[in-house]
């Protein structure tokens, strides 16, 4: 941590720092804190977008409706809906499968890219391609690979003699859900690889040298040197993937629309649809707030654990 300023200038340091941070803090208060509180408020009211009367905040000719307080009604309605619970279990499966796939694939790619071979810098650039695409484009290009009529992967599998006829990947719910997991993994695993690679580069060569002297093979070195050193980063990846998994929405929009039936409806999709398709803002924001609660809880646990971990390691 840098400490600048000497002698007489030190007095104004705090004032100057506040001058620099206050625009952002005010901005974030306006575009994050205010909407966050207002959304929370909406989840306890009987929002009706068509109603123009009733309680409201009025200032400078702007009328912000407050609607009527209904207590826990929205939350009780949401928790009483079997669809909420089935979506929650589906979300847990989705998140679990995604976290495992993304971490394993991310680690595998990192292990390959950490070796020395001609063209490695280029490969590291290519690594970012899947991650830099809009999820709408990600979904779109996987349609091109998986489609029942013109999917290139179907054609490839058929040519290799692995399948007799094109597979309808999106026909049944179980297959659709797993395709969503893998497509999201394709998009997100490179970021995990990036973090793993950064971690691998900071492992001291002497550790590997010592392991080599002890006669450790590739996998033993991975298990006893690489993996333990990467522990904080593995943990970071697990948490980032978990939170991202809970929030994923855009791929569902472009690939399955939550269907067939409700077979790919996750909590975030249910909240999105309830709010913005059926315009039930009360129950919808209630669903979204339960999702937020889950994510913040995870983040909190993560910070406890990882900060504790860092301190323990010095």
């Amino acid at each position, binding site marked *: *941590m*840098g*400490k*600048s*300023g*000497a002698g007489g*200038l030190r007095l104004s340091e*705090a004032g100057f720092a*506040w001058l*620099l*941070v206050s*625009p*952002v*803090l005010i901005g*974030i208060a306006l*575009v*994050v*804190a*205010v909407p*966050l509180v207002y959304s929370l408020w*909406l989840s306890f009211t009987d929002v009706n977008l068509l109603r123009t009367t009733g309680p409201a905040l009025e200032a400078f000719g*702007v009328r*912000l409706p407050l609607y009527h307080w209904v207590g826990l009604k929205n939350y009780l309605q949401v928790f009483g809906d079997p669809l909420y619970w089935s979506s929650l279990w589906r979300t847990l499966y989705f998140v679990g499968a995604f976290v495992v796939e993304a971490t394993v694939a991310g680690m595998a*790619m990192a292990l*390959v890219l950490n070796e*020395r071979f001609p*063209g490695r810098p280029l*490969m590291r650039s290519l690594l*970012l391609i899947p991650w*830099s*695409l*809009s*999820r*709408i*484009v990600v979904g*779109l*290009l996987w349609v*091109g*690979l998986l489609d029942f009529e*013109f999917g*290139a992967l179907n*054609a*490839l599998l058929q*040519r290799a003699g692995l399948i007799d006829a094109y597979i309808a990947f999106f026909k049944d719910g179980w297959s659709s859900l797993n395709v969503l997991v893998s497509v999201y993994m*394709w998009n997100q695993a490179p*970021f995990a690889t*990036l*973090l793993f690679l950064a971690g691998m580069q900071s492992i001291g*060569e002497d550790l*590997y040298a010592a392991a080599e002297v002890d006669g450790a093979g590739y996998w033993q070195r991975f298990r006893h040197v690489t993996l333990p050193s990467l522990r*904080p980063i593995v943990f970071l990846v697990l948490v*980032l993937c978990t*939170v991202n998994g809970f929030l994923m929405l855009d791929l569902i929009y472009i690939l399955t629309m939550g269907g067939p039936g409700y077979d790919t409806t996750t909590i975030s999709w249910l909240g*999105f649809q309830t709010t*913005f398709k059926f315009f039930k803002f009360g129950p919808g924001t209630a669903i*979204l707030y339960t999702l*937020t609660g889950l*994510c*913040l809880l995870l983040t909190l646990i993560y*910070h406890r654990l990882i900060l504790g971990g860092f301190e323990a390691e010095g």
Partner: protein
Amino acid sequence: MATARARRGGAYWARSGRSRVVLGTLVALVTLWLVGPFLWLFVTSVSYQKHLMARPLSFVPPEVTLDNYRMIMGLVRFHAEGQAAKILPSMWNTLVVAGVVTAVNLVLGTTAGYAYARFRFPLRTVSLLALLFTRMLPTIVLIPAFFVIFRALGLQNTLSGLVVAYCSFTLPFTVWIMKAYFETVPADLDKSALVDGCNRLQAYYKVVLPVSGPGLVAGGAFTFMLCWNEFVVAQVLNTKPGTTTLPPVIAGMNGQINIDYSVIAASGFLGALPAVLLVLIFQKYMVQGLTAGSVKG
């Protein structure tokens, strides 16, 4: 150093033949996995739909055409030209929104990141924790509030509204990335500037900022990419035709029976290109910025 290298698997040409084959195959597989799908998007975008439907499918298009791109540009009349005509204006909207948000982030976020990296001041820890909290907050929970508030303010279906909404998820990130970056810039630099007679503000923008190019590039490119690719907020807040960004327009074309996949692929490829090029060009800085920002986060 030479022996150290050998221990990590060694240089490629120093490996045994078998080990080279294994590594080469693995590298090829990873490359195919990373680039293959995106390349195929390009191939479909220069193909005719009828050739994509052919069995067996030919992986090298029998006929290369720019017709799909011509349709998007409005150079060819076809039955769905109304929908295709939305692509270019929505790209312009995306560019404006992403550009303005990036500028706001670079000015405000960088300044705050600098202050957090350099100074101790009252409420520093508290406000940093608040930033961390907002960084982890799902944007989706803010959208219902944006929807009602923007309706009241008349910001619905405007690009300004999107700029405001996008700042909610980009600003905390930028501050964090820039804070991590400025912590790597030696504090002696500012000190000697102060000794040389600069005031604090001058030390910041005359001495520190000019050597902070890599950090600015990392923060700016990341912000631009996030905004360029954003879908849900634009889809919900800007529903009036002509007011939204590219991702919702492409999503709207997808699955429409009257539009060939090859045309949608062309718009997808065209839309992906700016972000992909940006990331490829600034890859080095972005990786540094992002890993520093995440690992320290």
